């Protein structure tokens, strides 16, 4: 434990290093399998070897040979970012209200949002399709963004309200007594402490939007709004019935990169809030 149970000896560092290695291997081994599949030529694809005997870039060339995949990438990135931003904003507002304020309908809202999270999405897809068709939202970005926000909100609200609950009310009081306006109190004191929750929620919502298949396949029809998971289901092998395992693996590698970047960017901020000096004892 960092500085709690004793000094940071080299022994401790090595111990943690080993643990880290175990975690990384466990997490990445199957991923490396996908990466390896993506570099195999179509002849050696099914030879069962972990390391490709024949390295080839043909799978990557294949997926970028038309504009379909690139277009799907753009759609995915745009839709996921917008949906995440809005869901986090709406969710934070609602979570703050639920955790801090008292108003009638609070428990109802919490219950209803849980209800929405629980209802099987497969039976909501067809009615949603018909609504969107009549509103002209079918096969558009908002057509996907709205359902994504809706189904991300329950998790966002629950996670964020759990965090807001933990933040001591006294801090806000103390800041106001020190002369800060409510806005300043929020920005300087509360927001940094809420940061872990907000960034955690952002990561989870982003990944949800990024990976969703059910809504994407039902509410899109052309390149205009088709996202990556759906585009993958359209890939074809070089002949009938042939599973395009190589192309799918290559596409999977490509689409995981934004996730890695997103997570790398946000993971530091999850703990950053704690050390910003609010908890002085």
């Amino acid at each position: 434990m960092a500085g709690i149970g004793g000094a940071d000896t080299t022994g401790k560092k090595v111990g943690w290093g080993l643990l880290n290695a175990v975690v990384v291997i466990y997490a990445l081994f199957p991923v490396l399998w996908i990466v390896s599949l993506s570099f195999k030529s179509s002849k050696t694809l099914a030879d069962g070897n972990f390391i490709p005997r024949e390295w080839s870039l043909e799978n990557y060339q294949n997926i970028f040979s038309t504009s379909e995949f690139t277009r799907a990438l753009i759609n995915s990135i745009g839709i996921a970012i917008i949906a995440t931003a809005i869901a986090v904003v709406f969710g934070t507002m609602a979570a703050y209200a639920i955790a801090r304020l008292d108003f009638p309908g609070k428990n109802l809202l919490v219950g209803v949002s849980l209800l929405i999270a629980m209802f099987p999405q497969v039976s909501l897809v067809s009615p949603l399709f018909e609504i969107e068709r009549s509103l002209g939202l079918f096969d558009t970005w908002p057509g996907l963004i709205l359902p994504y926000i809706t189904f991300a909100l329950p998790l966002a609200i629950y996670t964020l309200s759990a965090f807001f609950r933990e933040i001591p009310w006294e801090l806000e009081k103390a800041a106001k007594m020190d002369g800060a306006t409510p806005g300043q109190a929020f920005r300087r004191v509360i927001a940094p402490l809420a940061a872990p929750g907000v960034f955690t929620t952002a990561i989870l919502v982003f990944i949800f939007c990024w990976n969703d298949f059910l809504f994407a396949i039902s509410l899109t029809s052309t390149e205009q709004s088709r996202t990556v998971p759906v585009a993958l289901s359209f890939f074809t092998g070089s002949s009938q019935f042939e599973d395009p395992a190589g192309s799918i693996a290559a596409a999977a590698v490509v689409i995981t990169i934004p996730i890695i970047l997103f997570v790398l960017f946000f993971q530091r901020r999850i703990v950053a809030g704690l050390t910003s000096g609010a908890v002085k004892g």
Partner: protein
Amino acid sequence: MSHATAEKTEATADEPVAPRKKAALSEGKKAERRLGWLLCAPAAITMIAVTGWPILYSILLSMQRFDLKFPDRTEWIWFDNYVTVLSSKYWWDAVLVTVVLTVVTVAVELVLGMSLALIMHRTLVGRGIVRTSSLIPYGIVTVVAAFSWRFAWTPSTGYLAEALGGDPVLTERIPALMVVSLAEIWKTTPFMALLLMAGLALVPDDLLKAAAMDGAGAWQRFIKVTVPIMKPAILVALLFRTLDAFRIFDNLFVLTAGSQGTSSVSMLTYNNLIKGLNLGIGSTMSVLIFLMVAAIAFIFIKLFGTAAPGSDNGGRR
């Protein structure tokens, strides 16, 4: 707080007049209410606008005999669909499989997720690498991951099957379920870990240091200090993970397509609703799944008591 004192004086002023009558709301209280509604409005409106009619429609459909292939036979039959589904052996087989998968995966993920969260939070070296790489499994598109697992477990094309002596694990019920569980656990432990790690971040170091100075060992510090403070985060993680696990679909679909008796309730619903175009039965299953999931959520919230969001005044007073 200024409006707290205002409230108090109002209450005492009211008391001699009508002790049991509902006191008029103070300006402060009204403002608080308005703010509360205002802040919740965007979320509430979005959620209800998008899902209100679809959910209602599903419930209505579940009480009708409605098969898209035979549209002229549609009729209102109240709860007959429910009787049909609840007396079907396929339904109960699927429930059993689903419950087993849920219990196994969530239990393992709680333990693994907590360990992972502790490592991600406390590690002295390579923080960024550990955190990022442990989140990657969750970030990979599920169907792709499932596809690669299937490839890996099929004898002659996959390294895992070869390593185990070439046995076709996916062709028998129990081994197939174990493979599916493994795929699920690998994929969604990061979800638990992330939520738990964020919960860990809220535990003040000073408390732990104080406990250490009082002589508490690492395990005692964990159980007596860390876990109680993390209760809300654990609830959220467990609750949402269980709800999702109960509705497992993607991994099953790709790995076994529900064959050899490995169908889950979601797969059954998909088969009846989307493939069989039987809107009546499919919607009935959806409602039943919803009820079961709601029961689980109810149990969790009761178990965790005051840790549910909004259930108390959140440390206000």
